[in-house]
């Protein structure tokens, strides 16, 4: 028994440290940690499109081929070398991987995180390790509402924006609106989306709205037969859903087959990712959102044309909102670094990043919330309409950033319940 | 003073099958009783009921005047009833010593200590003394599952006897043991039993063994007690010979006292 512990400890140490050589890297590269879902249910709709966008944009940045006004090769005078990490495994695992990226792989910055849980957990570690981190896709407003961060930025709006705008849209565009029903996934995203939507609607209509049923099926449940029946039994003028990925697909297929989509007005706050695959099952009149001015709602600009063409050519499908989110995060990071100048310290880059305004393929991004660390953008909804079999959109409404994003220093729910003071909607 | 064990109209049915019925037995300290009967006659059912392993369908079981109906095996054994099993029930993958030490801990010390080592020198000493008494000391560090049946049977009985039960029930102590070892085993066991003044019942198919060690015999037939009395008397009962033993027994030259010595040689 007596040497067992020493032996075991030696084996353990040898095996743990054996892989250290992985971290060797060239000094003149800009190492960028990229964290996105490469496995699991979120990889198809979010993770991989985002990774594809990253590949495309990083290559363009390195070659200096991004359209004007973005200039220069590389970032901080260096070529970007991406280090990809799978976002699977939960927040504890991801904080561990974040440390590995920063301390083992020695990355210069990290861009990543789709899951809200990860986006809540990572910033504290980023602060501790003093590493510039750009959150690129997660929706929860809690990140900059619950704390202030120096090293953390988010270059897109929170999911609150989607649902506040959704409430505006149905209030303005659905005639004789009296009742709503909801079907959202049973986790934070679904709960928050439904809450923001209904709370806003109550404020907009002075409480004159009836909620017929609130369904919260399990995430990735796949079978929505009972929920669809419940939506049919408790028929409402508008059905709200913040489903994404495979759940949207399953819901659309099953609801379409049972006539729910034809008989009811449905608003899909994150429905854009399903357009390419399932457009033919969505009936005319379905209200679609893209979590910002992305995809079909993206502005007509040189940058966007480049992004759409190149992306579609290379990957076979047009870019969806996670791809835009990724592009914005990378471009934002590059512009902040350019503004601070070559060889600038992290602190100088942060100062340059704070309050930055820039144009991405998805339009204007203002880092105007969360003490300059949180972006606010406009939000767009439109109704699907087929013209000669091609999907187009009508009744497109653009909501300015200051209409659908809570002002600096307020918490979303409180702001909505207070009647959304200071919202500028024209 | 009440009897050590008394059963009153004990009965057990399994569905439509009656495994035991109308069993009235009384037993006092120091008695050594052989239980005989063909397979399915109710012997094991009887022992299982008396030790709380199965509950009777009717009747009562009194140990020192107290009913044990509804009590679990554990409560029954705490009331002073010990048993061994037809197939030795041991901690198979542990050593003989550990088996004995655990048995000591639970049935003698009765204190579930958390931090005192089980294998203290003092406890090992005690355990080995017992193993010596049962003549299995040489197997101390062997793993039980590797040992021959006879050794396991002895260990099983030794463990059951540790707490000095007032009533000891041995279910076929010699089954699975080679014929030539049967008497050695029984001698060892009986020596220990006699020392403790426990009342002992043992189920046995071998009439030679019964003749040699039992003072009294309970003969089971078809779930009932067919005969109950001194060994010689019961075994010479023609009804018992016909229904239980299955053949004629010649009892003339096997007086228990004489063969015991020769069997040992």
């Amino acid at each position, binding site marked *: 028994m007596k040497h067992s512990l020493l032996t075991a400890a030696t084996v353990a140490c040898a095996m743990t440290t054996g892989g250290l050589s992985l971290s060797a890297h060239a000094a003149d590269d800009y190492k960028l940690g990229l964290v996105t879902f490469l496995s699991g249910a979120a*990889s198809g709709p979010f993770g*991989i499109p985002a990774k594809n966008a990253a590949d495309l944009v990083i290559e363009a940045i390195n070659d200096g081929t991004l359209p004007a006004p973005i200039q220069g090769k590389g970032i901080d005078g260096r070529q970007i070398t991406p280090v990809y990490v799978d976002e699977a495994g939960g927040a504890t695992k991801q904080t561990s991987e974040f440390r590995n990226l920063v301390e083992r792989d020695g990355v210069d910055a990290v861009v990543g995180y789709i899951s809200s849980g990860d986006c809540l957990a990572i910033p504290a570690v980023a602060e501790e390790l003093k590493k510039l981190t750009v959150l690129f896709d997660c929706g929860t407003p809690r990140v900059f509402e619950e704390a202030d961060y120096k090293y953390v930025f988010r270059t897109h709006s929170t999911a609150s924006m989607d649902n506040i705008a959704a409430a505006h849209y149905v209030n303005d565009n659905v005639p004789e609106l009296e009742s709503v029903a909801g079907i959202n996934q049973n986790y934070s995203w679904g709960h928050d989306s439904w809450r923001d939507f209904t709370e806003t609607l109550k404020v907009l209509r002075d409480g004159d709205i009836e909620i017929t049923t609130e369904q919260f099926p399990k995430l990735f*449940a796949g079978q929505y037969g009972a929920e669809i029946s*419940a939506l049919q039994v408790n028929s409402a003028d508008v059905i709200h859903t913040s489903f994404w990925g495979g759940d949207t697909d399953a819901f659309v*297929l099953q609801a379409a087959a049972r*006539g729910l989509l034809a008989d009811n007005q449905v608003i899909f706050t994150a429905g854009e990712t399903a357009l390419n695959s*399932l457009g033919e099952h969505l009936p005319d009149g379905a209200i679609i959102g893209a979590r910002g001015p992305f995809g079909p709602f993206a502005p007509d600009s040189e940058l966007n044309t480049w992004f759409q063409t190149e992306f579609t050519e290379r990957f076979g499908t047009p870019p969806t909102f996670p791809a835009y989110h990724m592009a914005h995060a990378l471009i934002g990071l590059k512009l902040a670094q350019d503004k601070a100048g070559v060889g600038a310290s992290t602190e100088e880059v942060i100062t340059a990043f704070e309050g930055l305004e820039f144009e991405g393929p998805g339009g204007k991004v203002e880092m105007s919330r969360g003490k300059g660390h949180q972006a606010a953008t406009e939000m767009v909804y439109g109704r699907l309409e087929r013209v000669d079999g091609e999907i187009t959109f009508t009744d497109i409404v653009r909501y300015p950033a200051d209409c659908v994003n809570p002002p600096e220093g307020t918490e979303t729910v409180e702001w909505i319940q207070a009647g959304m003071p200071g919202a500028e909607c024209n | 003073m009440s009897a050590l064990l008394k059963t009153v109209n004990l009965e057990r049915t399994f569905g439509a099958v009656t495994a035991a019925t109308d069993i009235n037995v009384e037993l006092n300290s120091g008695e050594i009783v052989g239980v005989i009967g063909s397979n399915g006659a109710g012997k094991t059912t009887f022992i299982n009921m008396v030790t709380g392993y199965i509950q009777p369908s009717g009747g009562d079981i009194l140990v020192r005047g107290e009913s044990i109906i509804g009590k679990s095996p554990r409560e029954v054994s705490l009331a002073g009833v010990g048993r061994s099993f037809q197939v030795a029930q041991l901690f198979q993958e542990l050593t003989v010593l550990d088996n004995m030490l655990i048995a000591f801990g639970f049935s003698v010390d009765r204190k579930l200590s958390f931090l005192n080592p089980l294998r203290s020198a003092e406890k090992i000493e005690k355990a080995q003394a017992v193993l010596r008494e049962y003549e299995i000391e040489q197997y101390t560090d062997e793993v039980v599952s590797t040992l021959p049946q006879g050794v396991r049977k002895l260990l099983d009985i030794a463990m059951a006897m540790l707490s000095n039960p007032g009533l000891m029930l041995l279910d076929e102590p010699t089954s699975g043991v080679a014929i030539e070892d049967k008497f050695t085993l029984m001698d060892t066991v009986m020596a220990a039993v006699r020392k403790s003044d426990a009342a002992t019942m043992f189920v046995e198919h071998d009439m030679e063994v019964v003749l040699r060690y039992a003072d009294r015999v309970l003969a089971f037939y078809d779930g009932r007690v067919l005969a109950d009395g001194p060994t010689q008397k019961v075994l010479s009962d023609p009804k018992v010979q016909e229904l239980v033993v299955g053949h004629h027994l010649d009892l003339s030259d096997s007086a228990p006292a004489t063969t015991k010595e020769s069997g040992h040689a």
Partner: protein
Amino acid sequence: MKQLIAILVDGSVYASWLFIISAGLTLIYGVMRILNMSHGSFYALGAYSGAAMVGWYFSTGSVPWFSFVALIGAALVAGITVGLLVERGLLRFMYGRDEVVMILVTYAVLLIMEDAIKLIWGVEPYFAYQPYTMLGRTKFAGLSFANYDFMLIGVSILIGLALWYGLNRTRNGKLLRVVIHDREIAGALGINVSRIFTITFLIGAGIGALAGALTAPGLSVVPGMGIEVIVLAFAVVVIGGLGSISGALVGALIVGMARATAVHLYPEVELFVIYAVMGLVLAFRPQGLFAVANARKI
């Protein structure tokens, strides 16, 4: 009234789906004493191969009705082939190991298959909705239901009947039941237990893949879909009694109805209604409702 009809129909549809996904699991456990975690991967495998085949089939522009055959055929072939590989290549070296170890072995198979599926088919969603929409819908009591879902009920009844017939009326089935009842006796009777195991695993894997294929048309086939169903299938099987086919049927019905009721009347408890049912059943019947009895041996 409308609600009651909805609950009954939704419950039955969900129950038949649950039965199809759990029948193979319980069969394998009953015969082989393996709680097969990789059952979820066979489900995913069936879904992917079925969907890929249907996608290809429609690209050839052949008769739409035949797509059902393509869907099911592809899944069965894939399920049985991989099943054979797993059983002959791995599991047979493990027979006799502890049940819990077997859970981990099949868990490892699940991890490997998940990534293997990803390597073959990528992470993009696959669709096979044509069979789902082709059958149209039925309206009654102010509600409309997809005919495909009714077909699912029929298929689950067919699978149930087939299993019942196979186990009770065929020679091999009777041998299988001997193995379920007492493996030692089966060995002593000269039954080739190893062959029975192979056949059982193939049937179980086949049904698992079939379940995936039948589910595929109603949704998009995406990575991780197998992990999601496995817990559900476990719950159903544990409620019904591990190893019992009729138990799986009753378990599926109970869970299906409980869930439909929850969705319609108390949507907020939907997520753990299934565990509550499982807890309740186990608290009163530790072996599940229809457990294959295990004699206590002394």
